[in-house]
């Protein structure tokens, strides 16, 4: 949170008035950080992450955990590196999917709120990042389970048979159920307030996990008499995370706008979400929902967290959002020529060893004004 403030201070340290604003934001920030998006995502970026593999995680040192998450962390400390890894691949995928857009999923390194204030509002972007991060956590935990690096995974005793003999009697359940469970328990732990933002985050987190389940694919092997399909064994495989990213991006483009409704219930006021437009199909549990409109991200704005699109590289030939017209918001673009040394005529061996020649190529680089 202090870093959040220092980020604000950096931007506005010239005038006293701005410092007052900073103090104001600090006060807001106290409630704001709790209300918007998870601070513990910062595990996934910067120096914190790099030490994950080598040192044991101190749960107390992870910023922004609510008590339930802290308890979870202490109980299952061995899967915490996978949780962090999951958020990281989620963010990487976000940056890939949004690479040519005005908002390109930028993270800031010097702040615990790794996206800055962008995700404080309940926008489409918030919906996407929550979904992809929760899918990422489920994905990475499932992976870690398959690698054997976490010992508490899967293999519940759902199957019949004498207790304790579940594995020998009927094998294990799919690991992906465990991954989703971890994501649900951990990522949703802070989204238990009765306000609209919590409801939205819960919905989008679940949509992310569902997208992972929906995109699992089945592979089979026949091994009956002489290799016939009399006996066939199938297993679910996780797709590569890009598939999840593409799927979520579609969901981002078709996300449903909602309005907040307040109900009086026994525990007080409860906010729920209702589709804004009745003539559209209501969102399913697989769709993303949001209830605030996004800023246009054209100009830098510390309040919305927009970095603007100045100096962003644009694509001259494209008529889409990554084209120079749209990306630069009509401000025009600069062009410069770059000579790049590139590897070419490479001979690859599968892992690490590449023998290449070096070629020089000349590129025109267009950047927004």
């Amino acid at each position, binding site marked *: 949170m202090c870093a959040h403030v220092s980020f604000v201070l950096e931007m506005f340290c010239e005038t006293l008035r701005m410092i007052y604003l900073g103090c104001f934001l600090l006060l807001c920030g106290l409630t704001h950080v709790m209300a918007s998006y998870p601070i513990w995502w910062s595990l996934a970026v910067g120096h914190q992450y790099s030490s994950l593999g080598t040192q044991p995680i101190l749960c107390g040192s992870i910023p922004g955990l609510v008590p339930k998450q802290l308890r979870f962390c202490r109980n299952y400390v061995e899967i915490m590196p996978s949780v962090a890894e999951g958020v990281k691949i989620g963010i990487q995928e976000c940056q890939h999917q949004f690479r040519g857009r005005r908002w390109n999923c930028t993270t800031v390194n010097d702040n615990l709120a790794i996206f800055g204030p962008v995700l404080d509002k309940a926008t489409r972007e918030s919906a996407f990042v929550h979904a992809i991060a929760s899918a990422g956590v489920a994905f990475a935990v499932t992976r870690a389970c398959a690698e*054997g690096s976490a010992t508490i995974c899967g*293999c519940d005793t759902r199957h019949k048979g004498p207790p304790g003999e579940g594995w020998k009697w009927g094998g294990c359940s799919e690991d992906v159920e465990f991954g989703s469970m971890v994501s649900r328990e951990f990522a949703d732990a802070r989204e238990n307030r009765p306000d609209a933002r919590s409801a939205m985050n819960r919905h989008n987190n679940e949509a992310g996990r569902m997208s992972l389940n929906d995109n699992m694919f089945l592979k089979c*092997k026949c091994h009956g008499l002489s290799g016939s399909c009399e006996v*066939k064994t*199938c297993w679910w495989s996780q797709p*590569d995370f890009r598939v999840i990213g593409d799927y979520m991006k579609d969901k981002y483009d078709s996300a449903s706008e909602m309005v907040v409704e307040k109900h009086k219930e026994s525990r007080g006021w409860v906010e729920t979400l209702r589709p804004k437009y009745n003539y559209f199909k209501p969102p399913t549990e697989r769709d993303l929902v949001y209830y605030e409109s996004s800023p246009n991200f054209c100009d830098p704005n510390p309040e919305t967290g927009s970095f603007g699109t100045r100096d962003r590289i644009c694509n001259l030939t494209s008529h889409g959002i990554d084209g120079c017209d749209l990306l630069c918001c009509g401000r025009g673009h600069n062009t410069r020529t770059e000579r790049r040394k590139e590897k070419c005529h490479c001979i*690859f061996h599968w*892992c*690490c060893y590449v023998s290449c020649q070096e070629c020089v190529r000349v590129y025109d680089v267009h950047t927004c004004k």
Partner: protein
Amino acid sequence: MAGAIIENMSTKKLLLFGFFILVFQVFSILVGALIAPSPTSAIRYLATKCINRHRTRVWLMPWGSNRCQQVHSFDEPLAKILDANDIVFAVHVPLPNKEMSPWFHYMLAVLQFDIAFKMINQIEDDVIVTVDARLAYRDDLKSEWTTKFHSVEQRPLKCTFAVPKTYENEGRFYHCDPVPLMEMGSVAHKYFLLNLRLPVNDTMNVGIGEIKDIHIVGIHQNGGFTKVWMSMRTVFTPWISAATAWYWRRISIMARPPVLLEKVIFALGVSMTFLNVPVEWLSLGFEWTWMLLLEDAQQGAFYSALFCFWIVFCGEHLMDQSQRNRLSAYWWQVGLVVFGSSILLIFDLSERGVHLSNPFYSMWGSDFGTNVAFTFIIVAAISVCLYFFSLCRMVCCVFRNIGGKMQQLPAMPEARRLRYKGIIFRFKFLMLLTLVCAAMTVIFFILNQVSEGHWHWGDYTLQVHSAFLTGIYGMWNLYVFTIIFLYAPSHKRGRSKSADGQHADMTEKPESQETQLTCGEQGPTEAYRITGKVAEE
């Protein structure tokens, strides 16, 4: 084959018997659906990428106290300075906190590659991946690993890329077919360790794309299923063998030598017993890797006997004048069965037989092997098709003759009419039974292929695949039992005959004589001469 129990049994008793069989059939399905777990388990392991700079032959553990030095992904800076030959993919079977058990019966391993698309490093067409695979075992967590097998294997890599191959799509994964890696016929140890390398030189493992990860899928039979399966076999073994012995006693106390059909039914009972014998009980105690081979041989022997039985049964009910009652009369069809099953046996021996000494071996690894395997399978399939074609022709023939005889029936003398009715009834009954069994097998097989592993029905989870296996297994056992029982010679005298207080054997002789006589109307057949001669003695 005259005067079988089925003809002399009252309708009431026959229905009772049918009900009894049906109860056991339902029971054998329910055992699979409710008690047994799914037949097999597939566990996905993600191989840990260990670094072995000195390229020593040490065993590298993916996790635990003495885990190897590892790279998380090949994009890491550390990985950039490595040589491909330094990387060892390590997989410990099973996952932590679990152990394997002899009840798992067999263990297969399948490779699944995660290969990312890169414009400048694409997978070439018809590429072969070379895997240096080693397997070790130990029985407690403390002791050293004991090397079990080591082999360098080649496998074709079949991958497709669904989206256009552009820079945009770099980083997406190819869809690769699972590559069979290993097949072990027994699980005699608690822990296994697989260490794989993809050795690289100028010609080996070039053009296989950018492998990001290797998944290994371990498949084994579930312990619970093994228990249920073996219990079923243990129940059926004494049952069918007793029925077979009883049948042979019935045959042998007759004064005439057994006719071909009776011998074939006896052979069917013997092959069923051979299929039933639960040798696996012994494999729990011993490391018998040839168990899978034996099971295939058992099944093969049963199918061959069944096919021979069908053809002989049809032939003996053909009601024409040609000479039969010799196996050589069916040389064409029986030859097809023997030829087809021995082709499959050779195929099995050259795949599973070699697995005894090298579980990593695969016939499909080389072009030559693939061609040979395909040839075997196609030849076997052709001979099976030819067999079924000639079986169908024979069945049609029988039905045509039955139609003809049905028209003549009213004009026939009483005794002969009853004999013909007997033959027709026997044949139709078996046709019906066989068709029902075959249809059930096909329906179950299709259900098994299209359905998910389990259905939920109220609070119960029905294991479809287990129900299929136990149901089909029970069904063919009951089929054989029904045939042995109903087609055994009857002690009762035929209702058409009036005989009083004669010994059962005595009534048998005139009956068989009568039957054979009516089968060959125009003149005595070989069978008639035999049975007739016997009758005179």
